[in-house]
């Protein structure tokens, strides 16, 4: 019988010929992502690390992004603790503040590879399904245990198959697609399940796939994954990952699914997720005219270059409503630099945008752009939960970058298709976009997307398999280190 992506990926990771849905397997993830919460994670196992050592210097990827730059003494102390841990144990993959939002950094720097398992102490770890990785979120305690053992258990999930057809029409994008899916199946519609995307996925750029996979957790999914194709290979190559460094996995044609859905991208329209649940999705026309006080453009969901350009195309030469605060949050330093170089950030700033450092900022209500009681925010982020942006008496609406930009102009929720039809055409919008092999001539072409960050070091790229020797504290005696390494292999 045919196997799903999840079955194949977990079988490979567990070293088994095949696995059944519901089976529990032990796996050693290629990487463990942690962020500002590393201080709390390490705090749980200070003594254990001293006794047993860190399992591998290459396993952890640590990105400081959630509250950056530190907002107060307490968060600064947390960051300092993370830097000390990195130094003491020689953690190889550490990215200090300003490098970007952890999920963007993981993909942009080539850590997420097709067919591998990644886990992270952040729910949006599922984003890496955009490049064909099996990636899922875990809690802090599990992350702590992984630092010590390098292994965890995973239950083989059932799979939902979503087939995509056609191309997005103008003013409609990946965010509208994923919100539409969540609205249709509900916030727990894919609970415990894997979600595979099939069909004309070539009509989605890797950046667009990132937006969709990122919100997999908002439908309850364990993973949300796309097949590896020419777009992925090109994207990864630009990220410094050679095609020889990974072996993609995809589902068999006769795999078994618990549910199958099909979406015609050309039929989609701009949508908005209304307070306080992500599955409270309505066509933009149903909420058009709703007054908003703040707009957030960016985050790990929609903070890539194509997203910022989409908003800039609407805002070029115009000014946002004086009653709206437009916050711009690029997903990484690479995105920030590229958007600076091509003038996108200048367009957004001249339109009235406030550019924030690449981090999580206002999305989780920790700092920057907290809402006041009675205010409403229209955001490109992934959650509109009550209290999410720091105030339980405020409202959050979720939409695409185009919808957020169009709405910022008027201070009320606005259908972006009207602005794209009427507004002055920008240089960015006029720039011809390279179309990829199209199965349909209708709709807009796929935007060129390439990772814009610093390329990964050649040494790391060249080796598909890396050493997993246990890393002892730097102060540890060499003899003890090697003995432990041997014992644990």
């Amino acid at each position, binding site marked *: 019988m045919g196997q799903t992506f999840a079955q194949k990926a977990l079988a490979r990771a567990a070293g088994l010929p095949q696995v059944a849905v519901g089976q*529990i397997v032990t796996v050693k993830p290629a990487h463990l992502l942690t962020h500002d919460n590393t201080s709390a994670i390490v705090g749980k196992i200070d003594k254990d690390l001293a006794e047993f050592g860190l399992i591998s210097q290459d396993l952890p990827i640590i990105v400081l992004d*959630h509250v950056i730059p530190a907002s107060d003494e307490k968060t600064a102390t947390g960051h300092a603790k993370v830097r000390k841990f990195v130094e003491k144990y020689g953690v190889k993959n550490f990215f200090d503040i300003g490098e970007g939002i952890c999920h963007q950094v993981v993909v942009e720097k080539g850590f997420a590879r097709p067919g591998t398992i990644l886990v992270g102490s952040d729910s949006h770890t599922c984003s890496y399904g955009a490049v064909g990785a099996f990636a899922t979120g875990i*809690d802090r305690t599990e992350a702590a245990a992984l630092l010590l053992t390098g292994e965890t258990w995973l239950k083989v999930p059932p799979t939902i198959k979503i087939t995509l057809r056609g191309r997005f029409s103008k003013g409609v994008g990946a965010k509208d697609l994923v919100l539409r899916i969540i609205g249709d199946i509900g916030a*727990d519609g894919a609970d415990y399940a894997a979600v595979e995307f099939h069909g004309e996925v070539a009509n989605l750029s890797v950046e667009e796939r990132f937006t969709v996979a990122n919100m997999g957790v908002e439908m309850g999914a364990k993973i949300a994954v796309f097949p590896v194709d020419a777009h992925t290979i090109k994207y990864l190559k630009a990220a410094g990952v050679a095609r020889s460094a990974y072996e993609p996995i995809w589902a068999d044609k006769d795999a078994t699914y618990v549910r199958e859905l099909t979406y015609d991208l050309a039929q989609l329209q701009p949508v908005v997720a209304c307070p306080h649940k992500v599955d409270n999705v309505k066509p933009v026309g149903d909420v058009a005219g709703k007054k908003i006080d703040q707009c957030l453009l960016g985050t790990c969901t929609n903070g890539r270059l194509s997203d910022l350009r989409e908003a800039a195309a609407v805002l070029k030469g115009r000014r946002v409503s004086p009653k709206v605060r437009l916050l711009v949050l690029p997903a990484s330093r690479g995105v920030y630099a590229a958007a600076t170089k091509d003038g996108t950030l200048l367009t957004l700033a001249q339109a009235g945008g406030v550019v924030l450092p690449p981090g999580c900022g206002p999305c*989780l209500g920790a700092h920057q752009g907290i809402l006041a009681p009675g205010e409403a925010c229209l955001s490109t982020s992934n959650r509109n939960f009550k209290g999410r942006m720091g105030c339980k008496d405020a409202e959050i609406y979720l939409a695409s970058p185009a919808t957020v930009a169009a709405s910022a102009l008027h201070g009320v929720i606005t259908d972006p298709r009207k602005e794209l039809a009427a507004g002055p055409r920008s240089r960015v919008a006029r720039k011809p976009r390279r179309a990829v092999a199209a199965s349909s001539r209708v709709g807009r072409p796929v935007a060129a997307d390439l990772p814009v960050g610093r390329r990964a070091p050649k040494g790391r790229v060249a080796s598909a398999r890396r050493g997993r020797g246990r890393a002892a504290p730097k102060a540890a005696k060499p003899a003890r280190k090697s003995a432990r390494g041997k*014992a644990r292999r």
Partner: protein
Amino acid sequence: MRVWHYGDDINTDMLFPGKYTYTCATPDEIRPHLLEDLDAAFAKEVQAGDVIVAGRNFGCGSSREQPVVGLKAVGVAAIVAKGFARIFYRAAINQGLLLIECPEAVEAYKPGATIQIDAAGGTITVQASDAGATPSTFSFPRLPPEIMAICDAGGLLEYTRAKLRARKTA
């Protein structure tokens, strides 16, 4: 024993607001903010042995584990729900907090009813407050043995330490 009754899609922001995520990690720091944006009475009045009854998708959203750590620390005996979000479910296993997925028991529960849980036997009994009402007992699926071992050890870190010590001495 008091039952705290909530609806569907209770997310982790409601259970523990994100604004405290990077400033509160210990049970003492977490406790005053438990369910802050959902039910202001909870943190003040919750007592050891209390039970939470909720609908579908309990614990959805952020992977933050403070809700689980906090609910375990204040002595919540169990959460009975129609369903749980998967990261929350794993977090509960890792802290040794009993989660019971039993939609029938949640449907049977009406405000004022009492709940009795037999964790070892895998049953939950709902007793309505009306005089003469007969109790309804439901069974719930137990965790697989390899996962129960984590709970039985007192949580994942205790389980991991025991495993590492055993390997070290082997």
